């Protein structure tokens, strides 16, 4: 890792790690847990959809799969001092990633809008399974997860676990972006047919990215399930969680490294703030929407790319007469 990249990571993650040790107000740390959760989900979503251009609306199915896997496992296995489920996260991630491969292989036979709809269906199929496989999931009664007895600062371990997941997601994205795999994915996003014509093994590259994305999503889902103690089909496989993560990615900048996380850090606290101040009336939803609309109006490509563009324009300010016309696309 270059020193500059390491320094940037330290500047971002240092204060985030210190946060729960400095702030002892439970409800604020609670908002922190959910902010990190969405930041992680958005970053993981971006790893597949942002880099390949394939819009998947089904990641929440794997979020639920991760949550249920943790919940059901620790109904049979002791949670020990309460930290054991956290150590099981990598296994859950790997298991769900492996399970996702054949599913993704079928879904990836479609493209563009069809792919989005197929993955959305996947979300509802998994939700229906959670409702109906009662022997495993207890249906709508939900799975109760054993509760740990962390003495004081109950939220802190969960906060740190979510932060760890976000860190892992960012690290994975950062690595993929700089690798041959990343180059293959970007080629797919730009022109998949052309990529096939120059020997890029597109299906394999897409499958690997999907499995990585889904594995991260499942781990985050597992932490979420452990944090809430109760896992219900409608909350574990929730289209709104999915839409939230997608919106945050678009807001922050699809396809960038830090954009999805920035989107989450803007939108989740804004949502919570609107909820506490305007929650009594239904106005809070309008305020939430307004935040989104204003940012998209001012920064249409998402926060990071738009700011980047403004910065370059400002740096290369030129007198009007010198502005070169952009080359037109040839039409044939």
């Amino acid at each position, binding site marked *: 890792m270059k020193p500059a990249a390491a320094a940037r990571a330290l500047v971002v993650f240092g204060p985030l790690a210190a946060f729960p040790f400095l702030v002892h107000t439970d409800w604020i740390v609670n908002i922190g847990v959910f902010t990190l959760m969405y930041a992680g989900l958005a970053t993981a979503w971006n790893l597949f959809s942002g880099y390949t251009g394939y819009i998947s609306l089904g990641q929440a199915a794997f979020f639920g799969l991760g949550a249920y896997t943790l919940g059901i496992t620790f109904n049979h296995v002791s949670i020990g001092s309460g930290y054991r489920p956290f150590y099981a996260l990598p296994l859950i991630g790997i298991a769900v990633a492996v399970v996702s491969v054949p599913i993704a292989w079928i879904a990836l036979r479609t493209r563009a809008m069809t792919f989005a709809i197929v993955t959305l269906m996947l979300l509802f199929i998994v939700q229906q399974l959670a409702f109906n496989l009662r022997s495993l999931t207890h249906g709508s009664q939900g799975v109760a997860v054993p509760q740990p007895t962390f003495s004081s600062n109950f939220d802190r371990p969960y906060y740190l676990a979510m932060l760890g997941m976000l860190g892992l997601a960012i690290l994975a994205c950062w*690595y993929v972006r*700089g*690798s*041959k*795999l*990343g*180059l*293959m994915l*970007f*080629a797919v996003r*730009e*022109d998949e*047919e*052309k*990529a*096939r*014509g*120059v*020997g*890029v*093994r*597109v299906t*394999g*590259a897409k499958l*690997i990215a999907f499995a990585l994305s889904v594995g991260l999503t499942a781990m985050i889902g597992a932490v979420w399930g452990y944090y809430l103690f109760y896992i219900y089909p409608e909350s574990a496989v929730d289209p709104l969680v999915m839409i939230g993560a997608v919106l945050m990615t678009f807001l922050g900048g699809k396809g960038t490294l830090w954009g999805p996380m920035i989107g989450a850090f803007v939108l989740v606290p804004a949502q919570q703030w609107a909820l506490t101040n305007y929650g009594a009336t239904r106005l809070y939803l309008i305020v939430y929407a307004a935040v989104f609309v204003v940012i998209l109006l001012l920064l249409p490509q998402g926060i990071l790319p738009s700011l980047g563009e403004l910065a370059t324009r400002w740096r290369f300010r030129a007198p009007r007469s010198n502005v070169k016309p*952009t*080359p037109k696309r*040839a039409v*044939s």
Partner: protein
Amino acid sequence: MKALLTAEGLTKRFGGVAAVDGCSFAVPEGSITALVGPNGSGKTTLFNLLTGYLRADAGAMTFAGRNVRRPDPTRLYRAGLTRTFQQARIFPKLTLVENLVVAVQQPWRSIVRRAIGRPDRTRALELLEEFGLVQLAGDAAGSLSYGQKKLLEFATVLMGRPRLVLLDEPTAGVNPVLVEKIEQHIRGLNGNGLTFLIVEHNMNVVMRLCDPVIVLDHGTKLAEGTPSEIQSDPRVLDAYLGG
């Protein structure tokens, strides 16, 4: 001369129209073979069949002495058969170097490596130098002019060290100086043993560069021969002028 690519009775129907209809021909190894014919005679469809972008309804093909049962663009590229597109398809947001390095054949285990390794960069810069694009190496490919995009696409397909390159109208919409340049590249590469199959409308280029010339009409091979034979063939004149 040994044939590098053969097609045997290739057929492709779109609804009731047979775009390619029982087409058979061979591309001799080391040649610059031209594929000409009036608009709508099935040249591009034939290209799509040969490179696996379309599945043929009937017929067979061989490449480098092997049967190709289910042509697939990726596998064919790795076997040494590659193509360019009529509209010069490149990856607009990637840099020129990235455009070239994408086309290097990678084994699976190397996908965790750095995107652009040193040998790949060196080779990419060499090719860009050859094609006169080296000073733009770090720019986004989308900022190139149309002619430069054609050159970039040409350079890209060479990264995989192919044996046969299919060029779809390499000089269409390109200025005369660049046409000459592209011709030189083709001739130079052919001198080093690379085989070409070229769809081209510019007859001057075809006559100067290609031998043999295959004439396509209504999806079937109408005639084949040296440029001078083709020029004096009454059937060819009829296909082009008679309509």
